[in-house]
């Protein structure tokens, strides 16, 4: 968990990346899929923002909207995405293309399927450099070898000509990172970069992303469903549920003073080593909502244990606003702020905090 307290995110248009009221809808035969429905956040250079949520909560769709990868598909996008002063949603495909890879880059979940099986690792990385820089192939190769060395691949000059199937999982993800960072992008989006890797490699990859963030002073969006990764890496966190942001704040807010019942659920279902051995993980009952028939009222109401704390049936009829409860900490919930604090302290924290009998 980051110990250095950071200033609250600047709530103004001067942020390096500013997403405002983003909607991404996909028309399908079954109806309109509202993958992202009114998402807003800011991010400055040098910061790492974690986007957390279950599968289908709209995390990846958001990142691909920022990269402009929905252009040419049937997706209907509205809202604004300001990136270094430029508006991205209305930008042309050609403008987005020149930004992609150069100013903003992306790392994907499964490095094996994300690399082309028929081209060598080195050529694929060099391609990313060549498309944005007018240099000779020799210089691109030199730069690629440097990059491979930076991300910690031994014998980079030899491994340049290897194919993806000759790399191990962790090495492939390192290569993907090299590809993403070769043009020194100002924004790096890592979409579940460690999900397909084993635990020891996970830590190395996260460490690498953090180092490079410091070196290049890039903004990083880390998409994950693993709260452990968030705690280790991020400065700010956005919790997404059903295509909406349900809670956002500093990483310490989220872990020590969470207020949204969904965040409580996530924390309760996270395995922790410092918890008693006998403690069972508490799953969130039910399953994520349909994004076609988004529930009325609060998107989380059908799975929420605390709807009885709200007067009347507001939880099922009225959508709660995302309201600030502390500087830089916003929550989407009908339960009054004071009562949420009490519930967390009295009911939630005892169940998820370390118990007396620590594992020996």
């Amino acid at each position: 968990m980051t110990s250095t307290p950071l200033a609250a995110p600047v709530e103004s248009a001067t942020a390096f990346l500013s997403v405002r009221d983003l909607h991404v809808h996909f028309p399908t035969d079954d109806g309109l899929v509202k993958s992202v429905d009114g998402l807003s956040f800011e991010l400055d250079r040098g910061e790492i923002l974690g986007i957390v949520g279950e599968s289908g909560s709209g995390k990846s769709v958001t990142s691909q909207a920022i990269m402009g990868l929905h252009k040419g598909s049937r997706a209907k996008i509205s809202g604004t995405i300001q990136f270094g002063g430029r508006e991205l949603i209305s930008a042309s495909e050609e403008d987005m293309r020149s930004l992609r890879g150069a100013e903003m880059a992306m790392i994907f979940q499964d490095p094996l399927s994300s690399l082309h099986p028929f081209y060598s690792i080195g050529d694929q990385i060099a391609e990313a450099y060549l498309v944005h820089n007018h240099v000779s192939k020799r210089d691109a190769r030199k730069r690629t070898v440097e990059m491979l060395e930076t991300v910690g691949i031994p014998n980079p000059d030899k491994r340049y000509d290897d194919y993806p199937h000759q790399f191990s999982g962790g090495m492939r993800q390192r290569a993907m990172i090299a590809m993403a960072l070769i043009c020194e992008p100002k924004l790096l989006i890592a979409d579940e970069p460690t999900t397909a890797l084993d635990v020891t490699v996970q830590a190395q990859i996260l460490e690498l992303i953090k180092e490079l963030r410091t070196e290049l002073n890039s903004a990083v969006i880390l998409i994950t469903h693993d709260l452990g990764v968030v705690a280790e890496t991020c400065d700010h966190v956005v919790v997404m549920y059903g295509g909406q942001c349900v809670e956002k704040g500093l990483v310490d807010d989220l872990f020590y003073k969470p207020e949204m019942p969904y965040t409580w659920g996530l924390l309760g279902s996270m395995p922790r080593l410092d918890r008693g051995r006998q403690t069972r993980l508490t799953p969130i009952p039910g399953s994520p909502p349909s994004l076609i028939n988004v529930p009325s009222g609060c998107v989380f109401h059908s799975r929420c244990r605390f709807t009885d704390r709200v007067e009347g049936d507001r939880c099922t009829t009225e959508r709660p606003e995302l309201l600030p409860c502390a500087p830089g900490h916003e929550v989407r919930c009908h339960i009054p702020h004071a009562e949420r604090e009490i519930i967390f302290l009295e009911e939630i924290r005892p169940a998820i905090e370390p118990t007396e009998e620590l594992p020996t």
Partner: protein
Amino acid sequence: MIRFIAIRLIGALAVLWVVSLVTFALFQLGPELSHTSPVYYYIGRVPFPKGSTQLKLLEHRFGFDLPVWQQYLEYMKHLFVGQNITDGVSDPVHCSAPCFGYSFRQNELVSTLLVRAAPVSISLCIGAALMWLVGGVTVGTISALRPGSIGDRIGMIGSLAAVSLPIFFTGPLMLLVFEYKLKLLTDPQYVSVFSDPVGWLKSLILPWICLAFLFAALYARLTRSNMLEVMSEDYIRTARAKGLDRRTVVIKHGLRAALTPIVTIFGIDIGTLIGSTVITETVFNLRGLGYLSIHSITTQDLPVIMGVTLVAAVALVVSNVIVDILYSVIDPRVG
């Protein structure tokens, strides 16, 4: 790589050996097992009943009285060493290796017949194959890039129509239009490409189109479905995330992957087609291997049937070996 090729070649030789065994068993032993004399299928329906001295003498001359394994060894020996063939009256004819025997029906060496017919079939197949490959892949790719668009629908309905139209319909139709109505071609005869390239082209252009039309339709559908699958792969998203332009993404990253399985089918199709373009050859009056095989079957000309079968098998095996080697070059995961 060399090891890979060596293994494939040894495999191919083994297959050819089995083919020679099966061919021998089916055609040379078949008549014997069904209690007719192979002589009848060798030199014609001689008026000697089975068991007569004259027939026995003939059987002796062709070696049909030898034990089976010895007959097979003789057959293989002739294939690799050659032989002198004699009917006992005229001067012996030297049949150099590979010797498939003598066609008494056509009064020519089987190898002469094959050498005359093979270039026709090969020209027909290779030319048509290039046409259908280029045409089919182009239509398929365009269709896949905008699935559901008007271009896609025209391409796919067109290819459905093309698959459904048999050559004995499209062939005469094209002859009617281009030869008899428009008079663009006047009864072209096959000539060797080396002696008259223009004449060669004229004689083959219509059969190429007909044959290619049929196959292009299959390849268009295949390319389309492969391409649709590949374009939704993660590595295409990576290519786009790198900032590559659409053309590079589609051709360098998409088509490259989508075409790999098509190479396999392409090789096998050409190999199979070389001995089996009977309908096209018949419609356009070309004397290729297909025509030769049908002709020899209807006239019960055993040595020619065996010869054509072996040549067709060799074509298929060779094209498969080429595909395997090519595949190991295209796909770094193989070999």
